[in-house]
């Protein structure tokens, strides 16, 4: 009997919680029960973490300045804990020695020296290359727009090695560490995606909002504009806009420019969604009830319309992200997007098209796996959000 009463109390508490749950709490509860979305969300968080802390985690400067001259086109080096010479608590790598001799036809080759004394140990938090956090240096055309935030300078990194280099994903032709470059590419892609989505969103809200709220001929005209922009083929448009960027621009300027183009191309889809949401919400009876009290349009928008479509808009934003990332990759890959030293996946893959890379240096493609995980995580999280987005859909009898 005690247990029964306890169960009843637990049930009552749970039911009360359900009855007083706000919209976002309901959405979150539904999202949590979606296993694939939660796992994808975890991966997404890991990726974002890697991107944001890229400078700290990467042992080397991803630009030319950090290249390892002794280890060009190098294969990935995985630290070992154990080998024939015994176990070591600290992971270590073999020393590489360059050797030229009659048996190699006097070509330089690398040989692994597996002697215990020649081991190189990995250790944590070493001092490494200088990197800045929260520094901002905008160098737009025209002196007026330049501004600089000095930020903080750090020297510590997550891991390093006592001598020589440690290249978890190998190096490329110039000796740049691919691991560091991958992390930075994630950061850059996320940054470009964020800016692009932000610009698209602002435009979509304004145009879609006006269209949806006022309806009538305003809606008709706005929709014609939206459809016109949407119908322009994206790839040629990208190419044209991107090729207009003068090459004198600094890489950061170029970065903002590419991100803006993505936003300007991406707004029509979002705008149409905003408009659809608004049009359907406007005709709800509770909106009419508010109007019959004499509520002003701003009250109706903020109290009734906006909360009703916020969840949908968040879904739309999350789902647009991968498109931005992929579009930027495509642009950079053909050389029209970002350039060195700002590197993204597209830039990383620029050099991966040569035959000898495909045949001999397959580790160039390791970043691709990261990007697949990143994009898929966005897609799964977006899908999960979309499924849980409207907790009130099935309520009518």
């Amino acid at each position: 009997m005690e247990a029964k009463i306890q169960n009843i109390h637990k049930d009552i508490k749970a039911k009360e919680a359900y009855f007083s749950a706000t919209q976002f709490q309901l959405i979150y509860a539904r999202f949590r029960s979606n296993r694939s979305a939660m796992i994808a969300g975890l991966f997404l968080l890991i990726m974002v973490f890697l991107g944001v802390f890229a400078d700290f985690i990467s042992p080397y400067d991803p630009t030319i300045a950090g290249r390892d001259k002794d280890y060009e086109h190098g294969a990935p080096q995985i630290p070992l804990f154990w080998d024939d010479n015994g176990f070591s608590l600290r992971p270590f790598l073999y020393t590489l020695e360059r050797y030229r001799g009659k048996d190699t036809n006097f070509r330089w080759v690398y040989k692994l020296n597996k002697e215990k004394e020649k081991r190189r140990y990995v250790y944590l938090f070493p001092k490494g290359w200088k990197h800045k956090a929260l520094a901002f240096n905008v160098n737009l055309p025209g002196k007026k727009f330049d501004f600089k935030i000095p930020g903080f300078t750090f020297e510590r990194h997550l891991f390093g090695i006592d001598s020589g280099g440690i290249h978890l994903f190998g190096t490329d032709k110039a000796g740049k560490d691919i691991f560091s470059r991958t992390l930075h590419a994630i950061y850059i892609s996320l940054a470009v995606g964020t800016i692009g989505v932000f610009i698209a969103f602002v435009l979509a809200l304004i145009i879609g909002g006006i269209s949806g709220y006022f309806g009538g001929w305003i809606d008709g005209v706005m929709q014609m504009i939206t459809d016109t922009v949407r119908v322009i083929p994206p790839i040629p448009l990208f190419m044209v806009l991107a090729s207009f960027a003068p090459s004198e621009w600094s890489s950061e300027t170029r970065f903002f420019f590419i991100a803006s183009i993505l936003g300007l191309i991406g707004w029509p889809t979002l705008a149409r969604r905003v408009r659809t949401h608004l049009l359907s919400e406007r005709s709800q009876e509770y909106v009419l009830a508010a109007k019959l009290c004499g509520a002003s349009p701003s009250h109706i928008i903020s109290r009734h319309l906006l909360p009703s479509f916020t969840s949908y808009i968040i879904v739309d934003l999350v789902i647009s992200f991968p498109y931005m990332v992929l579009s930027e990759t495509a642009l950079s890959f053909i050389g029209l997007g970002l350039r060195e030293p700002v590197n993204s996946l597209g830039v990383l893959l620029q050099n991966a098209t040569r035959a000898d890379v495909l045949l001999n240096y397959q580790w160039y493609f390791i970043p691709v796996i990261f990007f697949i995980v990143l994009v898929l995580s966005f897609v799964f999280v977006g899908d999960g959000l979309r499924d849980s987005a409207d907790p009130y859909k099935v309520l009518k009898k």
Partner: protein
Amino acid sequence: MTDLLNIHNLKVEFDTDEGRILAVDNVILKLQEGQILGLVGESGSGKSVTAKSIMQLNADNAVYGDNSKIVLEGQDVLKFKENQDLKVIRGGKVSMIFQEPMASFAPAITIGEQMIELLLLHKKISKEKAKSISIDMLDRVGIADADKRFKQYAFELSGGMRQRAMIAMALSTMPKLLLADEPTTALDVTIQAQVIDLIKDIVAEYKMGVIFITHDLSVIAQTVDYVAVMYLGTIVESGPVREIISNPKHPYTQGLIEALPDLNNLDKPLKPIPGDIPSPLERPTECVFHTRCKLFESGVCDNAVPPLSEYEKEHTVACFKVNNNE
């Protein structure tokens, strides 16, 4: 005479985000051909779910009880899988008409095309024959200019005509059993009377069995032969309609009748049933009605589920207090 339809211990649960919801429990029904059985109940009573179970039309997350059996002309249709067997039942032996006729017709195809499609799915006849059967049926349900209407789209017909067209479509395959789910609720009262008369004529002429679902007791009184009153998924009372309406025994049935406005006695106050219907998440596991019952007795009514037992010939009631007092 073997029963046309025999439902044994039907139990239907739904797997939702909020848990497993019991929608229908222990429903027992029998129907002969030429009979109209009414299922009456308010929202959440499970009447639609019961009817849809006959054709397995419930949503994918419906879970049927292990002991549940729906025997249609000797075959347990609940065991049928989504293959030939189920397709033969749906639209062939059993037809269903719904509350919202606009939802039954595809908006972009003419009514005639849909009727022909249905007929060709179930009978091996030529397209010409299908067309003539369909036009005959449209005429039979009282649609004037049937051959003109045959070529029209659903939105070109008024509400009453659409409902008749839906009845025509449902009947064109000569089903043995017709399920009518709130067919008159969305209609104006003048059209409602005509549709009720139509259904009664059809039943008399074609000798089919009809399950008529509604929440409107007056419509039940005028239309059906037998009635089963449902509340929160169980049958609380059933029997011949004259008996049930003149001598209701279950407190819920009595409450329903007393809550109805009576045109012949305008001074009588309207008596609602006290309390609120519990949400499906809070369905009582004992007598489903005990939370609102005027005859509630602690220890009896909140202890076990009252069985549907025979009070008089053909009149069954599920109530401890009623059955124990006899």
